[in-house]
């Protein structure tokens, strides 16, 4: 007998031995949505050491220019709006960059799919303006541009906006660890600096 | 009101003052207390040690003994917890659904002392007088199984002369846990040490609680260390008046220095 049949057979036997009495009903009377509050997103992101900058569509490039030193090399996903990038930086479009090139860059600029105000989270889903997962992972500085319309109040709302089969990365602040005396310390393997540029 | 006293085997045998105080208090408040003599032990020790089969006759006896009474009180959060949560479970595990139903019914009519006073009798000022500095340990079963909340504290705050001081880390277990104190004596002792440290930090001269078992544990530790802090059951404080300080002298719960 193969392990699949063995395991499934055991599980069926276990349930048959003492059948559960549940109806399967799940009470979902928790909050499904909430009032949208951009200030809350800013406060929650900041609380976990993300640096938040408010901007308008036409001041993104200016804002980013102020965040990155002149001449910085910046990885960008292929579909990032060209107007977001300041002329002061050297752009490396991800047309199949290798990991070493990505890791050697000073920063990465991406868009986002969704942001959750209550938890201070941005979610990337691999769309053309966000790119492959690796580009937002190896550079030490991540600049993530979020449009106001992408912000939701709660986690349930975020999940309804996301497409399950896309590779999803939920990011809440820079890389951190609580492994040393259970205190949150920023900066382990992921980007140690997270800038969120919020467009409204 | 006619109230049946579920004395608990520990109070009956080792700490009768807590039980006598319960009787005196309720009588002073104008109620009739009866003591069904067929009662022995609720079986908690058996259940918690892993002997549910041996506990079954004790559950049966308890249910039979207290079934005729509308209101039942015990000066113990732990034993009321056992009646509420364990009796129906033991009966059900033994396949006796009828007993389980009756046990649930008895449990609904069974109250821990502070619950009875505040919820059923509607009093918080029981007219007690107890001129001491007191700290209250909310025992785990009163706190988390029964959810007595601040009822004991409301009762204590209304006691004349009593200086109530908050216990740091009050919600931490004292380390008794019945069979736990025997089987894991070292860990139990470590928990007790921390609890005593917190009690001593309050500067109280009396530590009170609603469970004789935890007080026995705590009182035993405090006595061994010659701390001079007495353990006194909540019922004894509430029963004390200007005329009769039941919690004085050798009547105290715990042991002499």
């Amino acid at each position, binding site marked *: 007998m193969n392990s699949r049949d063995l395991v499934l057979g055991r599980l069926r036997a276990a349930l048959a031995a003492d059948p559960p009495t549940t109806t399967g009903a799940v009470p979902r009377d928790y909050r499904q949505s909430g009032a949208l509050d951009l200030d809350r997103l800013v406060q929650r992101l900041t609380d976990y050491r993300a640096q938040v900058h408010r901007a308008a569509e036409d001041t993104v490039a200016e804002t980013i220019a102020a965040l990155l030193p002149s001449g910085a090399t910046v990885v960008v996903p292929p579909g990032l709006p060209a107007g977001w990038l300041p002329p002061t930086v050297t752009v490396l479009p991800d047309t199949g960059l290798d990991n070493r090139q990505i890791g050697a860059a000073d920063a990465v600029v991406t868009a986002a799919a969704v942001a959750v105000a209550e938890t201070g989270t941005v979610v990337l889903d691999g769309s053309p303006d966000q790119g492959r997962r690796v580009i937002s992972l190896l550079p030490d500085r991540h600049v993530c541009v979020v449009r106001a319309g992408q912000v939701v109040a709660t986690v349930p709302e975020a999940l309804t906006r996301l497409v*399950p089969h896309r590779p999803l990365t939920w990011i809440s602040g820079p890389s951190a660890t609580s492994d040393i005396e259970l205190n949150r310390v920023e900066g382990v393997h992921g980007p140690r600096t997270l800038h969120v540029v919020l467009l409204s | 009101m006619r109230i049946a006293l579920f004395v608990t085997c520990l109070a009956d045998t080792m700490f009768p003052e807590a039980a006598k105080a319960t009787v005196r208090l309720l009588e002073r408040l104008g109620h009739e207390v009866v003591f069904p003599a067929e009662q022995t032990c609720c079986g908690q020790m058996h259940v918690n040690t892993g002997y549910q089969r041996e506990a079954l006759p004790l559950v049966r006896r308890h249910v039979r003994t207290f079934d005729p009474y509308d209101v039942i009180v015990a000066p113990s959060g732990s034993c009321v917890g056992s009646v509420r949560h364990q009796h129906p479970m033991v009966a059900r595990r033994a396949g006796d659904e009828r007993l389980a139903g009756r046990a649930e019914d008895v449990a609904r009519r069974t109250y821990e002392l502070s619950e009875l006073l505040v919820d059923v009798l509607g009093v918080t000022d029981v007219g007690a007088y107890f001129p001491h500095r007191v700290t209250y340990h909310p025992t785990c079963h009163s706190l988390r199984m029964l959810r007595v909340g601040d009822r004991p504290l409301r009762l204590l705050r209304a006691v004349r002369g009593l200086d109530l001081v908050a216990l740091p880390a009050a919600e931490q277990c004292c380390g008794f846990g019945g069979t736990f104190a025997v089987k894991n004596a070292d860990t139990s002792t470590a928990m007790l040490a921390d609890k005593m440290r917190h009690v001593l930090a309050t500067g109280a001269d009396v530590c009170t609680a609603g469970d004789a078992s935890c007080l026995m544990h705590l009182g035993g530790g405090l006595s061994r260390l010659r701390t001079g802090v007495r353990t006194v059951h909540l019922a004894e404080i509430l029963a004390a008046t200007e005329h009769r300080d039941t919690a004085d002298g050798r009547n105290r719960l715990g042991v002499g220095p």
Partner: protein
Amino acid sequence: MSQVFLGMPATAPAGVGHLRGTESFPRAARRALADPQLRRNLGHATTTIRAKSAAVIDELPDWAQLRAAGSAIKTDVLARLPELLVQLEAKVTEAGGVVHWAADANDANRIVTDLVRATGSDRVIKVKSMATQEIGLNEALAAAGIEPVETDLAELIVQLGDDRPSHILVPAIHRNRAEIREIFLRAMPGVDPALTDEPAALAAVARRYLRQTFLSTRVAVSGANFAVAQTGTLAVVESEGNGRMCLTLPETLITVMGIEKVVPTWQDLEVFLQLLPRASTGERMNPYTSMWTGVTSGDGPQAFHLVLLDNGRSAVLADRTGRQALHCIRCSACLNVCPVYERTGGHAYGSVYPGPIGAVLSPQLTGVADNASLPYASSLCGACYDACPVGINIPELLVHLRDQVPHPRAEATAMAAAGYTMDRPRLYEAAQRATRLGRLAGRRGRGLPPPLTGWTASRDLPEPPEQTFRQWWAQR
């Protein structure tokens, strides 16, 4: 063919993995209790996390509702486990993954070892996973000449310190910053001796140390926090980014997952993604959560294997009361609030699952006889039940398991005698008169005879009163 031939529920095999300790809990606890540094570290860490967690849970007005939903989803999962696993298998396969079934630790270790061998790699990077610790995968890989590299900071501290994990979430919780610094200086080549014990500096050292390994290793092994049957999506919840590295950089990803981690629908994640971070690290959301479904062309590993692990879970499922232990989402809140865990630490439990959940899960996975002291490693204070984000009634489970443990003969005799006496008021009164219950256990006075001596070692016992309550009542 009848179902019996398809296999009866089975416990986890002995001789492999880390579910059984080598000594009883009280004995192991005694050693831990004698280590004041350990107690200080644990006391500090658990106090910190309790406060953090309470603060972020208080922020949610609907915590109780989320908890009820989480519990209901898990109840439903267990009732439909075979069906959901088959659905998950189909969805993962559809999305380009390969699903393997492992009946026990040996099975799983063999599957993973073979998969790694087939890639030709002699090293794997690992993101912290309880399931792979449970089955002893690192030992199995090492025996096959494959080097497993733990990439979670705490796991790295444990691995470099030649130590054992002592907490579900923070395996090095028993180490403070000064000890961690020493371990790094000793075990990591090329660390600057001027390294301070600032947590940020320690984290930076780990970052440098592992970066090259991340970039050059072709195979990763992970666990999973959740797997969605409806979509075939896997989720890993983490903090440091080592998870993202393992899930993104290698060519091959192997995920080993306990079968109870499946959830029915995508929507169910909305419950657990709120419960887990707040209950575990005390954060509104952990820094990183990765979700993937099979293989995504051009992004991340192009070969994905999912290993579904039984290893005793079917035996847990067979017990109506016991099966709620399979609701566990490994948040470790029950450890953090447990007064016993806080004083003994995790090693005393012998198994990779320490604390209250370990005390109810390990004995069920192995069969209670193999972990007979664990169900007693609790004062039944109930703090774990209050803290558990999926409402597992751990005290009830402990009592349930104590009933199944093989009892010492002397104790069984004493308990039977006590039960007999207490069911006969005459005898009971006689016993009270003779010794006032104390005699049931031994002599009166300051001490009690074995096995009760432990209790009186540090406490005085009260003298029995002159008169029992019922004597007083009778004379009134």
